[in-house]
């Protein structure tokens, strides 16, 4: 038989499952376990990566049926350009993180058994592959929940810590409710696809052909959107995200934040553009609004965090928001069937998906490296790591630059595309949207700027300055595997930023297939140099030139200035002549984010307390000052606390039924009989 992308994909699945099967035999020898399983997952991810690239490049669509599941409802699998794209993303990051994990997970040896980590990491990867390959509701949901469950166990990895348990519980609860919502939405669509006389209604193929009345279509869409949003961490369903990502092992988090959230995006795209296909503009508007809210709130939260991984988690929320913004725009344009414009917006969203996978994976791996080296979680205790971990810090810097959307790195390209989409909104026939969408652009701009601030803080406080902790903590650079992983991700960030045209030409098939429109081919001679989504006169950007230009000017300046050698004296800090500056006197992360906190404080529930205990009551001469800061998410008090209280109240009422006296228990059937008889006659 000839090899097709699908054979590669199924081969990669096979490899992963054989790796899983290997675990029971290897878990006695943990080192071997780590090496074997993670290299296998790396290989399988590589295969999927190739399969994905291949599929999208040639615009292949293959579907197969695996004879598992119910006899009348076997597992349908389908590999088309959309799933191919996401397969690429997952495969790429899966490959990188698997290499990284070999080094990272070894750090646990001697402290605890890593078997469950290894096992569920691979299962999570497999689950994600299956989700994008699934082509019927049943298989999709199975893969979806396998993914959720395995990530739950990953969060539970260090299960003796209560915060892990709490986070894991919250995560799975929200994810499961979301999954039920998705299930219901599929049920609705299956019902309209072909009644419920047989099982064939559950296949996506049937759903593609369904004719569903608009009102029910809206119900189906919003059920699905709710479910996927719960997984993607969209406001206000985001609360699990920071908790889970801050406590889970970093390699797992790199996958979860980097690609698992994206499977939710995949779901939204699949349901919207492939299954339902015809929708009014306001669906897109709703998605857009949620995206904006998520983006800006996410990044504001991120700035206020003191725990590095927590900060990164919130910033993932922001990026999901940005992706949703692109998606929403694409939906709005598509609903007015402006195919070219919606193609632009969709490309922006997809490109950001890819980018975010890369740099967020990189950043989480970096955070993992830092935690691995310092055993320190809060940034306030760190600082000056750039001197001790040069590689990690350099790579982390690349990640920070990329995520702050600075040219010539990749984050910029996708945000630029999103902005272009915004600027094309005047073409929309609806005046309301004309007025509102530019405001959205402004919010996006705010988000981008805040992101830059956030990562100046993250990098500055963690890596720059001087070590704030005690001096004799041994801090060492991480090993080769981890460096390799991060290096790969970093180079991807650069590549995607400098040569976007290749990637966009490659992925142009996706909007072409699902929206019927594609981006204009890049114009001018040296087409690959200029990214011109609409037209040459409309807007253009050239990554290579920016990169080369800056390098050239810097090099020139450097050479000229060093032509006449001036010596460099090292001296103590000047700092306006202040003396005896200790590392504790550096600007802390809390202080750094204080202005933002003051400006946007009304959005949060900030509790700031300063306690002064003074020498015998003379407050003028305090001996010690305590400062405590608590920032809570208002959503807790607005949404989650009430829900919890309500359900416990109901539970108490329900408990009243069971209050012990047998006479009461005898009354219930008595009443029931009487009532039923009265009702029925």
């Amino acid at each position: 038989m000839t090899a097709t992308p699908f054979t590669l994909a199924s081969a990669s699945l096979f490899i992963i499952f054989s790796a899983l099967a290997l675990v029971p035999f290897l878990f006695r020898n943990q080192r071997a376990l780590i090496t074997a399983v993670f290299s296998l997952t790396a290989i399988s991810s590589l295969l999927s990566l190739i399969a994905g690239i291949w599929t999208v490049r040639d615009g292949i669509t293959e579907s197969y049926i695996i004879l598992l599941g119910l006899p009348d409802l076997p597992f349908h699998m389908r590999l088309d350009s959309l799933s191919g794209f996401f397969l690429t993303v997952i495969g790429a990051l899966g490959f990188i993180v698997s290499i990284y994990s070999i080094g990272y997970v070894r750090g646990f040896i001697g402290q605890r058994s890593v078997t469950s980590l290894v096992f569920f990491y691979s299962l999570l990867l497999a689950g994600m592959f299956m989700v994008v390959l699934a082509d019927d509701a049943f298989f999709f949901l199975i893969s979806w929940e396998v993914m959720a469950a395995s990530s739950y166990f990953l969060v539970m990895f260090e299960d003796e810590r209560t915060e892990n348990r709490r986070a894991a519980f919250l995560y799975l609860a929200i994810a499961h409710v979301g999954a039920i919502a998705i299930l219901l939405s599929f049920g609705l669509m299956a019902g309209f696809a072909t009644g419920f006389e047989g099982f064939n209604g559950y296949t996506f193929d049937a759903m593609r052909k369904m004719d569903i009345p608009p009102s029910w279509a809206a119900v189906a869409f919003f059920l699905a959107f709710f479910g996927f949003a719960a997984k993607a961490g969209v406001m206000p369903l985001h609360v699990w995200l920071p908790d889970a990502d801050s406590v889970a092992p970093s390699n797992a988090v790199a996958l979860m934040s980097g690609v698992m959230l994206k499977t939710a995006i995949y779901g939204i795209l699949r349901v919207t553009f492939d299954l339902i296909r015809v929708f009014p503009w306001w669906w897109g508007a709703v998605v857009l609004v949620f995206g904006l809210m998520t983006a800006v709130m996410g990044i504001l939260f991120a700035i206020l965090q003191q725990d590095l991984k927590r900060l990164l988690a919130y910033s993932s929320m922001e990026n999901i928001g940005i992706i949703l913004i692109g998606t929403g725009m694409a939906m709005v344009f598509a609903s007015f069937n402006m195919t070219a414009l919606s193609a632009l917006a969709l490309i922006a969203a997809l490109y950001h998906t890819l980018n975010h996978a890369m740099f967020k994976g990189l950043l989480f791996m970096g955070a993992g490296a830092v935690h691995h080296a310092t055993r320190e979680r809060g940034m306030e205790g760190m600082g000056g790591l750039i001197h001790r971990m040069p590689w990690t810090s350099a790579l982390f810097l690349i990640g920070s630059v990329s995520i702050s959307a600075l040219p010539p790195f990749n984050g910029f390209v996708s945000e630029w595309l999103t902005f272009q989409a915004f600027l094309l909104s005047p073409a929309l026939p609806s005046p309301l949207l004309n007025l509102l969408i530019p405001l959205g652009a402004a919010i996006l701009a705010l988000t981008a700027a805040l992101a830059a601030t956030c990562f100046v803080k993250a990098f500055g406080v963690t890596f720059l300055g001087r070590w704030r902790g005690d001096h004799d903590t041994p801090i060492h650079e991480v090993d080769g595997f981890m460096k390799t992983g991060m290096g790969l991700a970093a180079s991807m960030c650069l590549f995607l930023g400098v040569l976007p045209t290749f990637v966009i030409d490659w992925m142009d098939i996706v909007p072409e297939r699902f929206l019927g429109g594609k981006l204009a081919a890049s114009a001018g001679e040296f087409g690959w140099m200029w990214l011109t989504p609409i037209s040459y006169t409309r807007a253009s950007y050239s990554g290579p030139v920016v990169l080369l230009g800056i390098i050239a000017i810097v090099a020139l300046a450097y050479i000229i200035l060093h032509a006449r050698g001036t010596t460099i004296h090292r001296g103590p800090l000047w700092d306006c002549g202040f003396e005896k500056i200790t590392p504790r006197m550096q600007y802390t992360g809390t202080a750094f984010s204080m202005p933002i906190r003051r400006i946007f404080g009304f959005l949060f529930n900030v509790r700031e307390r300063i306690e002064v205990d003074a020498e015998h009551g003379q407050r003028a001469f305090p001996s010690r000052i305590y400062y405590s800061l608590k920032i809570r998410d208002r959503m807790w008090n607005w949404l989650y606390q009430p829900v919890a209280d309500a359900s416990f109240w109901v539970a108490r009422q329900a408990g009243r039924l069971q209050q012990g006296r047998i006479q009461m228990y005898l009354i219930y059937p008595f009443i029931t009989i009487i009532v039923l008889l009265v009702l029925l006659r």
Partner: protein
Amino acid sequence: MSEIFPYILDGLQIVILLFAAPVFAGWVKTLKCWFQGRTTAGVLQPYRDLTKLFHKDIVLAENASWVFRFTPYAVFGSVVLAGGIIPILSVDLPLSATADIIALISLFTIARFFTALAGMDIGTAFGGMGASREKTIASVAEPAMLMAIFTVSLVCKSTSLSQMVQVIAHGEFILRPSLAFALLAFALIALAETGRVPVDNPATHLELTMIHEGMILEYSGRHLALIEWAGMMKLFLFAALGIAAFFPWGIAAANDSPALFVAALSLILKLTVAGVGLVMIETGLAKMRFFRVPEFLGSAFLFATLGMLSYFMLE
């Protein structure tokens, strides 16, 4: 010849930027002295400062990392590159397609990003404070900036600067309220972005008020020179940007020498006027408290939004 010429012109424009920027800065300083009735050091004083700094040795804080040493070059590089993109004399620039206005603004963001990192690198309270404040202001300023720019680009149906100049300068002349609002917003933001009074005071080293100076406190020698120079160029470029976006008349459409001559003259004229305007603002206003700045920029944002709305409503 004709296809080489644009490249030469682009190079020329960068050279102009490099050498005109200090003059412009000097002009502003001189005007200020006149306004405040002081004697001036002359328009060329910035040159002297720069040369002096270039000749000085560098004293580097002992725990400064490579980020600290790389920053001046990064700042310089990004700003100069921006200079090659903004049409100062002519629209027909090969580099102008490199980055449209959004990319241009993020070039300036690169400079700011690395300056802030450098401020935190040496690990002093002032550096961190400066970085924090700088980034805060930037976070509020940039959206407003983009709103102002978007208004213009909506008018011109393009975000590429050359195209904008083309449309406004060489299309038929219309009075647009949207552009008026946008200009107002742009002026306010430009003050913030270039760190002028009332947002920041370039002349102060008073610990608790300095923002930009706080970050570069530890720099010396050529590093400091590069940063100062970049600062001057940034001021110049914002003036040029404002000109290109709002008063592009005179900028050459095609690269024939008379047009370029006219362009040069008009540029000098406009810059002179711009300097006067800037100085009038700086002497007229006092530096405001840091936490008043968001309100200041918020009003800028409001103007920009009004501009956009008026574009949709009135035009």
